[in-house]
């Protein structure tokens, strides 16, 4: 076993490297990913080691990048597209929703599109609109796409490889504010032994209330649980990991025990993933709920200027306030 301490960004870099080594059909493509190594250096050194025909610098043409990936995938490649920032994905939206999501269905399964679209998402780095957004609900709403979000280095390392190995198109969200956070990664464990890609995971067992999060908010949820542990409140934290399809069985099990549930995400609450999850929990666990399922989310505004970011983003206090409110019923 080779356990290394890696940042989340480096774990992704290593995961991409392993995928490139494992399968010559894996290609990376995106803006500034080669020579520059990507804005967040996630692809640092990969063009040098695998060549510019496998780690492809593209022009600024998001629709073209994703559309080209469709063609490559039809011809048997496994393209991994990097969208530089969350807010830059919209020019590619048409290709993703109209082509990537539908071609398998449209061809009655003849065409498979093993495409991964990597998107650094969320705020917390002092950036602004177009550079701090959480667009996951748009994609989770679209049948034919799978959507996942990693939250820690170990998952980042395995999930990116699992996503590349998947025969379905996957929108892969990376929590950009957590790129620099470190954690232990077992770089020699076989991928087959890893937690399945489309499975949620209980990160911290607890008795009193269930806190659900994904991507960058997982750390916030864990911190909230730690903060109240000394006060005798025992929070269970579940990392959803897969946003489409959702894996809610562990969530139902948890909520049936705790009777209380708070869902945390950075995206605005209205029409967000939390709404879907809350609806399903209500349908499955209604008689066991002690309180409504509450959401802690971004506000229903465009992403604000850097100076208001701290107020906009859910933080430990807002999570704990929501947990408190579940005790108010």
């Amino acid at each position, binding site marked *: 076993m080779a356990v290394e301490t890696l940042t989340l960004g480096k774990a992704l870099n290593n995961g991409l490297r392993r995928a490139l080594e494992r399968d010559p059909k894996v290609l990376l493509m995106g803006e500034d990913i080669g020579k520059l190594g990507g804005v967040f250096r996630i692809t640092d050194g990969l063009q040098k080691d695998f060549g510019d025909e496998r780690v492809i610098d593209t*022009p600024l043409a998001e629709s073209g990048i994703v559309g080209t990936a469709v063609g490559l995938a039809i011809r048997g490649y496994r393209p991994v597209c990097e969208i530089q920032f969350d807010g830059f994905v919209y020019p590619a939206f048409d290709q993703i929703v109209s082509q990537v999501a539908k071609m398998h269905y449209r061809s009655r399964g003849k065409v498979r599109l093993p495409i991964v679209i990597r998107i650094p998402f969320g705020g917390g780095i002092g950036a602004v609109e177009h550079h701090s957004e959480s667009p996951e609900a748009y994609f989770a709403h679209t049948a034919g796409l799978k959507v996942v979000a990693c939250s820690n280095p170990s998952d980042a390392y395995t999930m990116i490889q699992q996503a590349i190995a998947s025969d379905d198109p996957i929108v892969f969200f990376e929590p950009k504010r957590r790129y620099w956070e470190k954690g232990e990664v077992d770089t020699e464990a076989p991928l087959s032994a890893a937690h399945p890609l489309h499975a949620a995971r209980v990160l911290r067992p607890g008795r009193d209330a269930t806190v659900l999060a994904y991507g960058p908010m997982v750390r916030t949820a864990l911190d909230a649980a730690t903060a109240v542990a000394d006060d005798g409140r025992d929070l269970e934290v579940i990392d959803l990991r897969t946003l489409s399809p959702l894996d809610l069985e562990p969530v139902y099990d948890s909520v049936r025990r705790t009777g209380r549930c708070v869902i945390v995400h950075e995206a605005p609450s209205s029409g967000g993933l939390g709404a879907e999850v809350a609806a399903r929990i209500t349908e499955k666990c209604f008689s066991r709920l002690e309180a409504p399922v509450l959401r802690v989310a971004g*506000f229903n505004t465009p992403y604000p200027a850097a100076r208001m970011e701290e107020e906009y983003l859910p933080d430990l206090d807002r999570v704990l306030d929501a947990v408190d409110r579940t005790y108010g019923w």
Partner: protein
Amino acid sequence: MTTADLAAAAPTDRAEHHYELLRQMLRIRRFEERCVQLYSATKIRGFLHLYIGEEAVAAGAMAALTPADAIVSTYREHGHALARGIAMHSVMAEMYGKATGCSRGRGGSMHLFDAATRFYGGNAIVGGGLPLAVGLALADQMADRPVVTACFFGDGAVAEGEFHECLNLAALWHLPVLFCCENNLYAMGTRIDRAHAVTNLAARAAAYGLSAVDVDGMDVLAVETQTRAAAEFVRAGHGPYFLEFRTYRYRAHSMYDPDRYREKAEIAQWQQHDPIDALVRRMRGDAELDDDALARLDAEIAAEIDAAVQAAEEAPLEPIEDLTRFVYAESRSHDG
């Protein structure tokens, strides 16, 4: 002033005109140099993309446009905004995110906006401003206004689909758009010949039926002359025009960019053709500028910047209660 007027101008008028171009370029450069300091001091947050090296394009082009003309810009737009005439204190306050900024503190460095000077915004999305310019120009055309919409963008935008859609639309409908491409050779970290099969961007525009020329973007007088001629062409109803300004940014793409994709020697070589130095040399040669005048100009600009910084420091931030305001024009409770 038309091109012919400019050519016929008296020497004193010409000297005054050159002084004004120099003043604008220096204002932009010194403003941004101060912004670097303020960014390091976290007075300015968000992103900061510097224009240093490219000042001749903003100063020369804006000098050739009228107050009625419209401007559409990019995220590297401090120079455009200042040369266009948005007050420096208003731009600086916006850099600070203060409520007195030209976008009331919500736009920041990348989204300067000022309807009074018909400056229809910076834009964080590469190529995002081009369709907007087509719409502005269509509105002017339908209202029979003899107005030019000058749309600035970089070489990177030429790769985006919107560029091609918009050049076609503008040419098809003979719209009064002046496409101002600032070709600084790099789309962030990717050099133009690694992103474009045809690097002669004016030739690309010509393929859509536009009149197109390339211009030495390091020569403010060339920029002004060519922009003036192009704007006259557009204003006369001959349809859109494409100017490719060949220029160079000395600084990294943004404050986070380690600038590993080019050689320092390349930067030094372009600095040999610095637009400010070149104009100063020329004016000195023609006895239009002496040491005293240059020192006075430096002092005047330093004072303007100091005043802008002080005003920004003292200005209020938007209250946090306003976070959810202005999401909709018609207010309603939407966050229940």
